[in-house]
């Protein structure tokens, strides 16, 4: 009886072996593929870098510089450094960070004030007449080209479109709105202004139609510090 059991077990194992072999073969193949992939993705860059170490060039004195040439190189560095430093204006200037809605005011090349502001919301407004507007603050270098106290806002077309209102004629008195831009406004061109706001809780957030909004105290300081031609750097 025992003999019969032993034989049947052997037969069972023999039957199972091809399946076992298949799985072992499969796991070896998979492991090999994984090893190659890991090698290519992670180890190969290290090998390349090590190889680059072997390629390291040692500088050769193809033309040794005499004292006169060294002095000339020193002078060029000094001259160009001076030229570069002169690019920072000695006059007051203004920097606006549109990613985090912050500003910095500089005078005599030193920062004299910093704080929150609001810049463009990056909204693309699509009107029903196929017109569209992007509300973003332009980046780059601008100059103050206009300064006014107690500004009155002339509402552009988009301000009616975004509220679902009919667009009035260009000279319609409904376009003029006083008291919404604060006490001062400084123009940087193309209709973009640095002005005050009645929405002070939104300062530090990207909520405007492209203008730069500030609180009353900061706006006053900026208005009094910046003059016509002062540079405005927006990034």
């Amino acid at each position, binding site marked *: 009886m025992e003999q019969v059991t032993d034989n049947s077990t052997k037969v069972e194992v023999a039957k199972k072996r091809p399946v076992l072999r298949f799985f072992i073969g499969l796991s070896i193949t998979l492991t090999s593929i994984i090893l190659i992939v890991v090698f*290519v993705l992670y180890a190969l860059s290290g090998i*390349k*870098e090590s190889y680059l170490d072997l390629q390291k060039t040692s500088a*050769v004195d193809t033309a040794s510089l005499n004292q006169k040439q060294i002095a000339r190189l020193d002078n060029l560095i000094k001259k160009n450094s001076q030229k*570069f430093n002169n690019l920072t204006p000695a006059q007051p200037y203004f920097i606006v960070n549109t990613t985090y809605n912050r500003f910095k005011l500089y005078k005599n090349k030193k920062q004299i004030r910093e704080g929150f502001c609001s810049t463009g*919301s990056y909204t693309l407004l*699509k009107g029903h007449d196929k017109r569209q507007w992007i509300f973003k603050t332009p980046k780059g270098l601008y100059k103050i080209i206009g300064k006014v106290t107690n500004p009155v806002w002339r509402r552009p077309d988009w301000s009616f479109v975004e509220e*679902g209102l009919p667009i009035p004629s260009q000279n319609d008195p409904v376009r003029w709105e006083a008291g919404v831009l604060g006490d001062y406004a400084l123009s940087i061109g193309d209709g973009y202004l640095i002005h005050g706001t009645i929405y002070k809780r939104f300062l530090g*957030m990207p909520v405007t139609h492209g203008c730069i909004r500030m609180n009353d105290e900061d706006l006053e300081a900026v208005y009094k510090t910046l003059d016509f031609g002062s540079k405005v750097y927006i*990034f």
Partner: protein
Amino acid sequence: MKRFRVLLIISAILLVLIISFISTFEILSVNQAIEEFNSKFSTNPEKAEYNFVSTSDSSISAKQIAYAYINAQLEASKSDSISLTLNFPDSSANLMIKGVVVHSAKIESYKLSRFINAVDEVALYKMLSLPLHVTGHISTIPKVPLMVKIAPKDTSEYTPDVVPDTTDIDAVNFIFETSAGIQLYFYESNPRESADGMKQFKFDFRDRVNSGYELFRSAFTFKKPKYQPEIRIKLNKRDAKMIYRALPENADIVLKVR
């Protein structure tokens, strides 16, 4: 059992062969990249103010690097767009507009490819003396976070804008391809603190998979793969986001590597 052993040995040999084949291809591509770089930056501009020389004198070498750096910054300042200066010895990354630093960030850590030490000294100085141009970019955040709004038909449909969500929930990692063939990788410096670790791993893994795929494709069609030296930079998340959003599509980048 014997057949199984043979299979195992064949697998091991195949594994070694494939790895050696791929490694050889990659190393050949490195040599080609060095040659291409050296020839690309070998000629002197006609109106060069100064002609760089190869020298073993470290003080002259430092002066040449300083000259190249200031020259590149001056060149970048001629452009109207925003540029980036990466000064590795000072660990600083500066955003500039017309030569004025508008934002200064600290480089938390960086890793320069050894390719920079393997190329010809004069070619390297020449490359550093001009700004690199960004030719392509990949990132985990959009460059312009545009939201589309359809105008209401009348006042009854009008709803005032909601307060925007200004929390930094997205992981900030990006890659710049440059005109000199160098790839600049920017990563958040402490992704685990803001639960961005997995996102950073995925971003990095996806990039490695793409490179690996290109390598396999080149190797099995017997073409030399394209080797691109890398500079990996870690920055604070806010600084990384500011830099990525501020720079235009074809921004100028100035490097100081020593």
